[in-house]
């Protein structure tokens, strides 16, 4: 099947009424959680994962994917109108977007953010469609050693790019690996780290762990200080950008799309880094860099295009290699596994409905998002006015319900509370949860491939170095580990290191 006929098949899946509804639900919830500060895409996806279990796999995955890229759109609204990013990828949009809003230009800022997101999202899907089959064919040559080394590289790169001490980030990744190993060993069927609890025989479930570390911990951190939110009161006006705005935004949008897509495909890369990189690039290329931070529309167009392109690009390593490049996609990997699917090079052969259905649904979802974000902007402004003291109890209740409904076990509610407390204390001490969650999801896969590679090579560790792809991945990983030891490069790392969530 060539790409176009595969895509046509994908549209026949995505346009089925139930899948359309799932796509709409996903992008709507994604926009909503993007708009609301205090709840990110990770929490929302973990929250809705149990609901997708009763749906067919393609509908469930379409909805989860919609939440991810939908949140990229919604995050800009809060950044522009309230100066508080709805999610981390929109932090940089605050700088110029909110300044534009204060100058009475909220309309064009919101408009260019939505249109830039639409353009970048669409280009990223086309690129995904073209690149994925080639990469998947190449990945068929991967053996356990290559997969193991690629996962090590992904975890090291994420730790490298995580804010703060790299030792702490690597420690979190190792803790995540250990937590992922709890339960029955897949090879020997022996119990590990279960402490006699029957609930732990199948391992820790991803939903309570993620909900605790991101949902509950975020709320506890927010409760520590009273935060006031003031929505810009000036009239939003026309959302359609003027000719001058378009001219100023064309270049940043195109560059942001390219940059975002490339960064998004890298293990450890993602929407946050790409939006900051795009902002820095536009400021450097601008003839008037002094305008940045004072309401330059290029400072909105570039980063918004970049974070949406990155969201699209991030699907490539997940769908073709089965390796999530960031924590949000790690959760999507969890959703695939729960639905009995294994993302990787064989996905598009064994489950074309799912693979091409997701790709086609992303086209449809992007159009839905444009409609949701342009004419319905007034509704999102009203959502922004819900006070946090009313909002956080509801989020907590949704977390509890989400966790309980995923397993029907109150044990998981306690696991969520435990990880909520752990996540809160970890933030206090400067330990980021993102590497932990990615490693938690990758843990069983990583161990499985390590053991398989050692069995196949009769216990020869050189197999990881002698095989070219595996050796190259490990070499890059070692370089990442060495960089923080060199003062000049360590400073550069600090400059680009960002929190992934």
């Amino acid at each position, binding site marked *: 099947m060539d790409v176009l006929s595969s895509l046509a098949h994908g549209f026949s899946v995505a346009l089925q009424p139930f899948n359309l509804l799932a796509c709409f639900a996903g992008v709507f919830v994604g926009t909503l959680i993007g708009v609301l500060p205090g709840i990110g895409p990770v929490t929302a996806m973990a929250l809705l994962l149990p609901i997708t279990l009763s749906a067919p796999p393609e509908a469930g995955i379409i909805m989860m994917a919609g939440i991810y890229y939908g949140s990229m759109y919604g995050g800009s609204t809060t950044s522009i109108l309230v100066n508080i990013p709805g999610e981390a990828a929109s932090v940089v949009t605050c700088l110029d977007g909110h300044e534009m809003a204060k100058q009475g230009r909220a309309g064009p800022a919101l408009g260019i953010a939505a249109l830039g997101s639409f353009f970048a999202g669409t280009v990223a899907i086309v690129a995904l469609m073209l690149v994925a089959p080639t990469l998947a064919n190449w990945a068929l040559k991967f053996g356990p050693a290559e997969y193991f080394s690629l996962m090590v590289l992904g975890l090291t790169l994420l730790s490298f790019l995580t804010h703060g*001490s790299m030792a702490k980030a*690597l420690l979190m990744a190792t803790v995540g690996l250990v937590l992922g190993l709890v339960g029955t060993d897949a090879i020997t069927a022996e119990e*590990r*780290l279960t402490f006699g609890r029957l609930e732990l025989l199948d391992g820790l479930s991803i939903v309570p762990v993620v909900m605790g570390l991101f949902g509950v911990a975020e709320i506890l951190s927010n*409760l520590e200080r009273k935060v006031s939110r003031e929505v810009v009161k000036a009239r939003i006006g026309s959302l359609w950008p003027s000719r001058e705005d378009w001219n100023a935004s064309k270049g940043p949008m195109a560059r942001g799309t390219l940059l975002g897509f490339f960064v998004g495909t890298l293990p450890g890369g993602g929407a946050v880094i790409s939006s900051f990189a795009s902002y820095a690039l536009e400021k450097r290329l601008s003839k008037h860099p002094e305008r940045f931070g004072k309401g330059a529309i290029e400072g909105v167009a570039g980063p918004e295009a970049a974070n949406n392109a990155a969201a699209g690009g991030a699907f490539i390593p997940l769908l073709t290699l089965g390796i999530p490049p960031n924590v949000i996609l790690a959760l999507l990997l969890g959703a695939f596994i729960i639905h009995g699917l294994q993302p990787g090079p064989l996905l598009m052969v064994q489950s074309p409905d799912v693979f091409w259905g997701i790709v086609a649904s992303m086209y449809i979802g992007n159009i839905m998002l444009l409609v949701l974000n342009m004419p319905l902007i007034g509704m999102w402004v009203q959502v922004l006015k819900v006070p946090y003291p009313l909002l956080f109890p509801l989020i907590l209740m949704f977390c509890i*319900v989400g966790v309980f*409904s995923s397993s029907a076990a109150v044990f998981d509610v306690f696991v969520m509370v435990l990880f909520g407390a752990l996540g809160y204390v970890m933030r206090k*001490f400067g330990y980021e949860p993102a590497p932990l969650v990615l490693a938690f999801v990758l843990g069983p896969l990583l161990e499985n491939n390590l*053991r398989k590679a050692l069995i196949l090579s009769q216990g020869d560790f050189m197999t990881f170095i002698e095989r070219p792809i595996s050796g190259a991945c490990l070499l890059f990983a070692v370089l990442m580990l060495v960089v923080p030891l060199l003062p000049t490069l360590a400073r550069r790392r600090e400059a680009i290191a960002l929190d992934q969530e």
Partner: protein
Amino acid sequence: MEEQTKGLGNAELWGGIAWLAFGLFIAWEGWAQGLGELREPGSGFAVFWCGVIMIGLSASIIAGAVAHGGPPLASLWAETRWPKVLLVMALLLVFGFFFEQIGFIPCSLILLFVLMRFIDPVPWWQAVVVSFGAVLGVWLLLSKLLKIQLPAGVLAPWLG
């Protein structure tokens, strides 16, 4: 410049010590599980080596804390509303203990009302309306529409 200390109140030091203890425990568990041989690694192989890596990393954090110091433990919670954090944690634990016996609807109503009235108080009528609306809405959506079971508890005779 953030306040730093090299004394025993150093938060970095205590963080490192906690993870070191955890790393030692994990390495011991892996060892006890059995490492197997390189040509056929056992169940404890990966667990043990993860523990060893944790020990190394936490030791480097401790060394850094001793050499460069870190923020005082007390400063992490200075000028914060930490009692509210503790209260929310306690409420969630109490909720977990009674969730199945008392049931989703009464438990959630109480939790929402208490959170809305005692953490950052909103007017009581808002707390009542939002609590009832949210709990009944979620119950109808999950139990009736999506057929996801939530504990009925004391309301079982009426909810069926």
